[in-house]
């Protein structure tokens, strides 16, 4: 089914304060977008608005990872497909994980380096591990669009590069808020820059350089 994200003269607010004003934006299927801007510019707000618009097409990796820390890695990843099975089957997996689901998820988390932690409570994991669980949950959802709010911020460069590749390979459409500009240029095909409450850059990744983006981070 075709879909697209459309914002027309939209004012977006965070905690009842307008953060972004008069935003016009259209993102279609197949695009790999990186949202850039300094901390507090409104990347999360924009991402949230997009998520609300097309929630059923989107898998989300939130900034605060949003795991249920009392549950283990398996449960947190399985949550990505709660909308696909019936209530009974979901509850069965909560109290008694099913072998085939265990196998599926074990395979999914192996490249993320979580295969030894399947039954660890996520509350006991490190920041980087938690972030990878949140990524695994989004991957398991297997949806058309991946929305990520700085999904690799707690990972080292090698790991981050590896995971960025997986994220981009497995999703048709990707929209990520990024703080690592180099990584953004490397994987995205469209760059959107936000500054002072509006979109100041919206160009193909091939036509912008690292230096062109420097002004986004100057006050």
């Amino acid at each position, binding site marked *: 089914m075709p879909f697209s994200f459309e914002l027309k003269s939209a004012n977006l607010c965070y905690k009842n304060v307008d953060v972004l004003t008069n935003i016009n934006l259209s993102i279609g299927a197949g695009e790999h977008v990186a949202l850039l801007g300094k901390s507090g510019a409104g990347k999360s707000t924009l991402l949230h608005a997009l998520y609300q618009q097309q929630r059923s097409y989107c898998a989300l990796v939130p900034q605060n990872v949003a795991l*249920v820390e009392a549950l283990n890695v398996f449960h947190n990843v399985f*949550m990505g497909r709660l909308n696909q099975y019936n209530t009974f089957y979901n509850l069965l997996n909560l109290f008694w994980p099913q072998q085939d689901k265990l196998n599926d998820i074990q395979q999914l988390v192996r490249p993320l380096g979580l295969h030894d932690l399947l039954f660890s409570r996520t509350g006991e994991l490190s920041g980087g591990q938690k972030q990878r669980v949140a990524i695994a949950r989004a991957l398991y959802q297997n949806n058309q669009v991946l929305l990520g709010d700085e999904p690799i911020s707690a990972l080292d460069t090698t790991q981050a590069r590896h995971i960025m590749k997986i994220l981009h390979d497995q999703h048709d459409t990707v929209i990520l808020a990024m703080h690592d500009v180099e990584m953004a240029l490397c994987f995205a095909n469209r760059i959107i820059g936000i500054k002072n409450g509006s979109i100041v850059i919206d160009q193909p990744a091939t036509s912008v350089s690292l230096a062109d983006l420097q002004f986004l981070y100057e006050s």
Partner: protein
Amino acid sequence: MAEPIVSLTALYPRSRTVKISLLFIVVAVVCAFFSDVEITTLYPWQEMSRLAHGLITPDFSDFRVIVNALMQTIAFAFLGVSLGAVFGFLLSLVFDYRLVHMTCAILRSVHELFWALIFLQFFGLHPLTGVLAIAIPFSAICAKVYAEIFEEADTAPYNALPGGSRRVVSFFYTRLPMVWQHIKTYTSYRLECGLRTSAVLGFIGLPTLGFYLEVFFKQGLYSQAAALLLTFYLLIATMRWWLRPQLLLVYLILSIYMLLPAAVDIDMANVKRFFTEDIVPYPLRALDDGTTTVFATIQNFFHWFYELFWLQAFDGIVQTLLLTQVSLVLSGMLALILFPLITRHFQGTIGRGLGHGFLVILRSTPEYLLAYIFLQLWGPSMLPAMIALMLHNGAIIGHLCGRYANEIVLPNNSIKGVNLFAWEIVPRIYPQFLAFLFYRWEIIFRETAILGMLGLYTLGFYVDSAFEEIRYDRAILLIAITAIINIGIDSLSRRIRQYLRLTTTVQCGQ
């Protein structure tokens, strides 16, 4: 006379906290002035030394009585709290509905002992009387606190779920596991409260701890009473070792087994008569007989109400409020004196251990029981009740303040003792202290009303007398009046906390 260079009032602008504290202290002093405080027994000190002697020479020879009293106390508490927790949990899921939280507020405002007195009239000493007396108010309290716990839980994991996830499933995967630990901790605290309540239910005739204590006290068998009390403290102090999730089912079955022999048939006719006839105000019953006109009935009803209100309720309300306000301030003062006992800034490890032990004993002893003991020693007046309420509530608030104070990190350690207390610690914990105290205000009121059953002229006295005279209509009206004032105090306390901008995490002493 020379003008002062700096006027004291300008230098010391009264903060809202100071103003409210002063207001409550002034009110308490005025109330104390009007309260009847005296020692009426002839030889209070002699009796006290006999009691003290009994406490240090506990007599465990009546082992079977002690075990039976404790088992019964646990059984009532267990069944009551389990039912309360289950229904409370279900209600907390729909607590947003106005009808639900209003109903809970009403159920909560009636003290467990009043519930017990009501059920006693038609169930008699059936186990249901005790179980329901705990289960009903506890459901309402659990519903409120669980709902607050749910509200505090982070919603981010819920928002990250794929669109179209079923609500039930989302609940079991995100909200429930996130609050589970908190709910478990609170529920075990509730069991501790339930044990105290269950013990006190013995005073109205159920076979729990209070019943045997009263028997021992009446006979002056202080060593036997001491043995019973000490085992009770031991039971509460060791709760974290014997209260295990995997043993819950065993305890539940044992509790039912303990109470079953007393579960005789319930006469439903009694139940029906209680609700359809007995509690209907007396003048209104004449309407059914057709002996009077509607107008005369209404006139009689108002006369009945007027008489009940001015001859009994009014005095009960005044006495209850006097005692409440004095006890509230006394509890606060004692809490400020007690909390350093368990605070690391003032005590070493050993000192704190002793302090904890002391506070556990004070707060595990129900106010009702303490008041009963002091009444035996000093004779009937407000004094025993005040001291009892002060000790129990002061220890609870002191415990909460101590825990809070232990988390304070001080920049330097150069000052010590009274200076440290007055300049560094108290100013830091004071807002929190007030929050704890105001949370307990309605609880102190509810307890004060109940203490009337021991012979003070608070509302409980009139309720108890009405039940004794088999004037159930009066008793129910008096309980309703108590409940309304209780709800009023609850909302006033909430307003004051808002005015002082006090926020606390849930469950502090609720």
